[in-house]
């Protein structure tokens, strides 16, 4: 096991990683920007190094500063968390060149799965169904037009280098296709520096179901079941749960097997999440693979009883994933609500500011992952997510009730948060019956 690692991230995930390291007796170095200098989790790290001003480009996204911090603190490895540099291939390469272990997959696997077009081709090879679409990038709008008519509308244009809902356009007819094509390319270029787009058939009423995988460097790859993340707004997840409430045993097994085939085809190790779209007839299609630990990993942790961050550390240090698939059980039901500093009454406008009153929920079955506390100032420089509330109970119905109880206890003042929006969703008849798809939130709220 490593004796000392650096965490190239901030906020709740930095704290999460510090906690796992403390239990494994791994020393931690936290990096921080000036905006985060008062973060209490910095006190839990063995060392903390200021790497720049609030601006991400000069701090959390700045590779030279992060590597310098790693060098002066003499760490063996770097955990990139999620977001920021977690899926940055160049960063992973620089780590290797500097003799630092990047706690994540090998560079080649990141390249293969990180490019959406190549990933689809890999899924083909692995015998996993993909959504009908362009076999590769689309260069010209005339090509887009022909393909759209071939596949049949509606279609979706997506950025090859992207994710997080950016550089995406859904098109229903020929009239809108040309402008959607050029605006998707422009957004992709702005967000990811790469205008390449491809096209897929747009599945109506899709559910987003993803499988958690962990693989070691010795050929053992296992699944930790699936999560349903259909409760989204503008392609941003709001609520995630495990198990997926509508899967039958056979489809569950098929999804897990498909995810494992993709991971093995990519010669992958460490944590991965393989995402699928489920249509209303339980047909499934591979969408993409995320080559990092995800925000919603606690949902899987509570239903399986496994610490995924610790597994990431162990696997990166060369240890064996010494479990059998059979030994990994999914017990009960879990739900996670992401709490963002956003105002649901004003179209979810971000609400940075200082939290003067903060009382987190607790009690049986409730876990809160957060870096925030009373007196914390939510900075406008970073993501608006301030906490995750995870509930685990024996049944989904109980989990919903406990989550509502927990959210009603949760006090965050005076900034606005998405807690009321989560409560509305949890009380909605369609959510309770799980008759939802990725368009559910936007249609009903």
């Amino acid at each position: 096991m490593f004796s000392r690692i650096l965490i190239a991230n901030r906020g709740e995930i930095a704290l999460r990683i510090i906690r796992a390291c403390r239990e494994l007796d791994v020393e931690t170095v936290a990096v921080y920007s000036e905006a985060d200098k008062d973060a209490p989790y910095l006190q839990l790290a063995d060392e903390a190094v200021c790497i720049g001003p609030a601006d991400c480009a000069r701090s959390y996204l700045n590779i030279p500063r992060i590597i310098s911090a790693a060098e002066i603190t003499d760490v063996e490895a770097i955990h990139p968390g999620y977001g920021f540099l977690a899926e940055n291939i160049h960063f992973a390469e620089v780590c290797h060149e500097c003799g630092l272990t990047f706690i994540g997959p090998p560079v080649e696997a990141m390249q293969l799965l990180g490019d959406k077009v190549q990933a689809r081709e890999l899924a083909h090879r692995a015998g996993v169904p993909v959504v009908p679409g362009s076999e590769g990038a689309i260069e010209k709008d005339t090509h887009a037009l022909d393909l759209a008519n071939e596949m049949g509308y509606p279609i979706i244009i997506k950025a090859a280098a992207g994710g997080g809902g950016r550089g995406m356009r859904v098109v229903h007819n020929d009239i809108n296709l040309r402008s959607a094509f050029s605006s998707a390319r422009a957004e992709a270029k702005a967000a990811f520096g790469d205008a390449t787009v491809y096209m897929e058939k747009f599945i109506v009423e899709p559910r987003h179901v993803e499988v958690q995988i962990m693989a070691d460097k010795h050929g053992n790859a296992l699944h930790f079941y699936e999560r349903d993340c259909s409760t989204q707004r503008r392609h941003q997840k709001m609520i995630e749960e495990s198990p997926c409430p509508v899967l039958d045993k056979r489809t569950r097994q098929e999804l897990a097997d498909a995810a494992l085939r993709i991971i093995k085809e990519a010669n992958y190790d460490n944590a991965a999440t393989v995402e699928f779209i489920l249509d209303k007839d339980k047909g499934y299609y591979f969408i993409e693979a995320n080559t990092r630990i995800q925000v919603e990993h606690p949902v899987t942790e509570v239903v399986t009883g496994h610490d995924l961050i610790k597994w990431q550390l162990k696997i990166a240090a060369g240890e064996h994933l010494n479990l059998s698939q059979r030994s990994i059980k999914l017990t009960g039901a879990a739900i996670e609500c992401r709490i963002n500093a956003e105002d649901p009454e004003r179209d979810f406008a971000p609400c940075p500011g200082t939290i003067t009153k903060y009382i987190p929920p607790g009690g049986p079955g409730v876990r809160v992952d957060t870096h925030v506390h009373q007196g914390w100032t939510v900075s406008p420089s970073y993501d608006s997510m301030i906490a995750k509330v995870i509930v685990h109970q024996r049944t989904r119905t109980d989990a919903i009730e406990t989550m509502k109880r927990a959210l009603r206890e949760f006090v965050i003042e005076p900034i606005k948060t998405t807690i009321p929006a989560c409560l509305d969703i949890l009380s909605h008849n369609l959510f309770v019956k799980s008759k939802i798809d990725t368009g559910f939130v936007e249609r009903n709220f």
Partner: protein
Amino acid sequence: MAHKDADLRKIKELIKIMTDNELVEVEIKHGDDKIFLKRSHGQQVVNQVPVMRIDSGSAAVGAQTPEISSQPTAAQPSPGAENLAEIKSPIVGTFYATPSPDSDPYVEVGAAVGPQTVVCIIEAMKVLNEIKAEMSGTIVEVLVSNGQAVEYGQPLFKVKPD
């Protein structure tokens, strides 16, 4: 009444002694009488706080010359004592005071600097970055030592601006 005036004068003298010598705490006992003065220090007080303790055997405070047994601190001038500026590290890395192991330091206390004066090197990822003063003035204090790891924003030098 006269007693009180005398006391007040002595206390004011004590305060002046404290300020002039950058002392933080003074405690004077004679018999059952005790006076304890504590001055707000502004920054975080760490280990080396100069303290003056006087045990006067006489009836009046300050009648004898107090023996100052404090150890003046090495590197903590009181903030706001003068208008000093700081040169801070713009990057993360290792500080070097000299261009090479055998040469003289770029600057020392008392050196005049201009905006383009190179004051030190900070090594980051095997690149030696020359750090410029970016201000005009005189070096008053060097805050870090050769080979020390420095973070973004860490003060390196105190400068008295022109």
